[in-house]
């Protein structure tokens, strides 16, 4: 099978370092297929965080972390509370598509410039990425130990008691955290391309 036009450029030269918080200029330099290594502070959020932020429409000061320019990582980690603080045991991405109905509004209202997860997202998010100069990053599903070791420190948490460990918003300090750009601010989506190609193969297999 021919390689995708968005094949990951995974030679060291093409890997881009990105530092958080992002700027719109940073985002516009990213294209589908780019391999990135992320450094700095990012937040996690999955089903409950999305539903909450979507309906409550909070002001920036009502959230303990500054979400402007942030990456929101779809992740429900395993974290152990120790005497020295929180310790991340395992934390890979969760399926992003479940928050498709919320994400477009979260991106525009809270000023996120990146969303990270697995499996890709749909049309509403593609449009929101374009409109808000935001990017979707895909990281490696199931590689929870490997990825946890790219998190230097669990800095803080919000809504732990209310939402529980897997659903709280965690603030992680990451170093060289690997991901691939699969949906960019130019409206391109690797997921859309793969789905289209697989659709024509599927149709042939069931004709």
């Amino acid at each position, binding site marked *: 099978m021919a390689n995708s036009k968005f094949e990951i450029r995974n030679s060291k030269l093409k890997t881009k370092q990105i530092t958080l918080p992002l700027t719109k200029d940073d985002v516009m330099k990213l294209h589908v297929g780019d391999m990135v290594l992320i450094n700095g502070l990012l937040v996690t959020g999955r089903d409950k965080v999305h539903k909450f932020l979507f309906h409550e429409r909070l002001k920036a000061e009502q959230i303990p972390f500054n979400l402007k320019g942030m990456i929101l990582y779809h992740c429900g*980690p395993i974290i152990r509370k120790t005497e020295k603080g929180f310790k991340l045991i*395992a934390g*890979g991405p969760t399926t992003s598509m479940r928050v498709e109905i919320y994400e477009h509004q979260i991106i525009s209202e809270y000023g996120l410039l990146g969303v990270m997860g*697995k499996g890709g997202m749909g049309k509403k998010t593609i449009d929101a990425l374009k409109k808000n100069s935001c990017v979707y990053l895909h990281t490696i599903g*199931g*590689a*929870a130990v490997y990825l946890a070791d790219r998190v230097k420190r669990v800095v803080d948490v919000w809504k732990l008691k209310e939402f529980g*460990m897997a*659903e709280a918003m965690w603030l992680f300090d990451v170093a060289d955290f690997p991901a691939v750009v699969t949906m960019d601010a130019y409206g391109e989506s690797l997921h859309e391309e793969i789905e289209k190609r697989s659709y024509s*193969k599927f149709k042939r297999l069931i004709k």
Partner: protein
Amino acid sequence: MLKLLDSIVELYKKAASSLPPDVENALMSAHAKETKGTNANSILATILANIRLARKTGRPICQDTGVPTFFIKVPCGVSHIELKKAIIKATRIATMEIPLRPNAVDILTEENTGDNTGRGFPILYSEETKGKTLTIDLMLKGAGCENAGQIYKLPVDELKAERDLDGVRRCVLDAVYKAQGKGCPPYIIGVGIGASKDQVTRLAKEQLLRDLKDRNKYNVLANLEKRILNDINKLGIGPLGLGGKTTAIVVKIGVNHRHPASYFVDVSVSCWANRRARLKWQIRNSKFEIRN
């Protein structure tokens, strides 16, 4: 029961942090098949590194340790009630010790119980068996791939799926096409065919316990498994859905008799992290072994 309790905690550890060797080997072959410098090749390299790291450090391979699902064969004379108690207690201990991610959420209050126990949680299937050995299979299946499963009642017009084995092939392809990368491929696909919804769903999931290298006892199904796997891998979805040759590593099919009016097909999709482990407990001397 104390020793049994400890051994169930060990079973959890094995299942959560050590991928079965047949699955790991299949992923290694997939890695070798995917062209160097492609999405698929680099993703599989990271997945393999993660598998080794999890085993070495005893940490869960994936943060989603799923809904613990037990398939139990109980010899005559062992109390199902006591066994259930031991499993629930072991679940609480394993959740704290390993640790597992607490996943049991109350539908009514939306609260997480924090210890992986609740109504119908974990899931227990038990049946009586001959002999003096208690066998407990534990499956930890993440929700990303559980959500990717589908159930069909044949015929399905838009798939041109009639009530026959080719109809089954069409359903499986439809399920995988719909799943795309959302359930973390390369997938292990379990298929159950039979008379009723509840039965085929369980049958499909049981196929995920099979050794990847075993051969279906029915030739026609062994051939169908191969054919469907071959078709799936033409879809080009690839590891994690970012393109490639390996969308699934195996298809396993189980059949029951059906009703003249019913032809149910359940497709259970497992992510690459097909976590399972088996505890064998000798009743006579309380000796046990855990393998996966």
